[in-house]
């Protein structure tokens, strides 16, 4: 599974989020082939190359186009919480698609 983590500037928050996402997905038994973190600008343009995009809640609507293309977009409130990410992933169809 190819994973993109995107935040406003692509340095601080998405890095923390990337670590939480890795932890959560590993625990759920997903196989991550590629994980990348970046700024929203870059993320909007490159989302098509990934299977799932994680971003902070307030930027969810920035990825509406990616959603239309069938990419799973997951909004996260607490970027430090692997538990929350894990719950949100379970609400999606990711497990059916990639396991």
């Amino acid at each position, binding site marked *: 599974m190819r994973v993109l983590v995107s935040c*406003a500037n692509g340095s601080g928050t998405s890095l923390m989020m990337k670590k939480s996402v890795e932890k959560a997905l590993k625990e759920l038994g997903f196989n991550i082939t590629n994980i990348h973190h970046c700024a929203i600008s870059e993320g909007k343009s490159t989302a098509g190359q990934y299977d799932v995009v994680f971003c902070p*809640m*307030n930027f969810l*609507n920035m990825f509406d186009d990616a959603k239309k293309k069938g990419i799973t977009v997951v909004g996260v409130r607490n970027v430090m919480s692997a538990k929350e990410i894990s719950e949100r992933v379970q609400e999606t169809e990711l497990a059916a698609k990639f396991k």
Partner: protein
Amino acid sequence: MTQVLDFLMGIWDYFAANILTQPAFLIGFIVLLGYVLLKKPLYESIAGFLKATVGYLILTVGSGGLVNNFRPILVGLKERFNLDAMVIDPYFGQNAVTAGIEETFGRTFSDTMILLLIAFVMNILLVRFKKYTKLRAVFTTGNVQIQQAATAFWILLFCFPNLGQIQILLIMGLILGCYWAVGSNLTVDITQDLTEGAGFAIAHQQMFGVYIFARLAEKMKKDKNNRKLEDVQLPGFLSIFNENMVATSILMLFFFGIILVVLGPAYLIEAGFMVEGQSFLFYILQTALYFAVYLAILQLGVRTFVSELTESFQGISNTLLPGAVPGIDVAATFGFGSPNAVTIGFLFGALGQFITIGLLILFKSPVIVIAGFIPLFFDNAVIAVYANNRGGFKAACIFPFISGVIQVLGSALIAAFIGLSQYGGYIGMFDWATVWPVMTLLMKYLGYFGVALVVIALLAIPQLQYRANPEGYFLIAEDYDEYVKKMTAKKV
């Protein structure tokens, strides 16, 4: 005996010449050291070393490009109007330090990296003894640490130009380490309240600002017809400002466009920046957009080595400091509260900044300030998030506006004072336009006594916080749910 000593000195000289004064390799080795301490496998440690070094080399490419791209504007304003133009933005600020530090003080940027290490160790030590210091948070935002270490290093060299290398690094490491620990610690309680116990604090550039505005916003709660931002619908086009690259391009086009038009094509051709017959419109467009290009390259470099640096730093602090809260990037708070707060904060901050920049020009300030994206967006957005959470709609509009005014005024004064403005940039974030100028003045005019005063004042802040609520002070960071129970029980 002398041969042995000579041999050791030889090793040291080699190390100093090739690593200590070469920031790219220094960062690489710092990361390598961190990974070895964390007992990571050898292949991962080597990968970390390479990524960190390459990341820094990418940064130098972006940095060189920015300096070159800036030349027509800096030189033009200086020659024609005897003005300094500076962008208030942490990356431009870091660039200005890199560009000016050899020329002004005869130091290299590597010293900045060593300072960063000392300050980080200082921060860890302060939290390690939290029983006495009452400090609960470790500052882990790597990109911000580098920007701040650069500016802080400059400030200290400016205050104590004759100090030796070791002394200066130790004094500054102490002050910067205290600022990191105390600032992050200030935001623990308000952040736990905002995020309902997400378990992090802010480690960024407006920690004092956020705290002050959050407290002021509480005073506005009493207003009966005060709405929160959650109830407001904003127009859709504003979402383009969420994109850093787009926002930077627009800002740069606006400011540099005006400056280039004022300089005029005749001057630019005469000075050799433009070619005869080139379209002036497209010259402006290209110059402005190249800022966004080099900034993107620079940030890519920073991102590359910072992810390694943070990885090793966090590993180290987590193993040493169980129970402490990590201080992280402010953007982590944007997912809480109202998504509108981020946009509103940006807009009102911009309004404050632009009006103030206009006034500076009207009153013939020798320094022209150019608004940068990061202070506009991150400082003011985060102030709006907290203000809205604690005081509602009005607070979320008024406080970012005030912050915008202060950012420009404070930065213009301090950057001109310490001589950074002539290199085209200053960090420009809220704390660096308020708290740091005050500290600079104390150190410049009171010398060592000023240093002592700054450190004592900083370390007194957590003690006061602790006294306000001794029961809940550590609990709120360790177990938020328990804290809420305890506090509601107390109220009953």
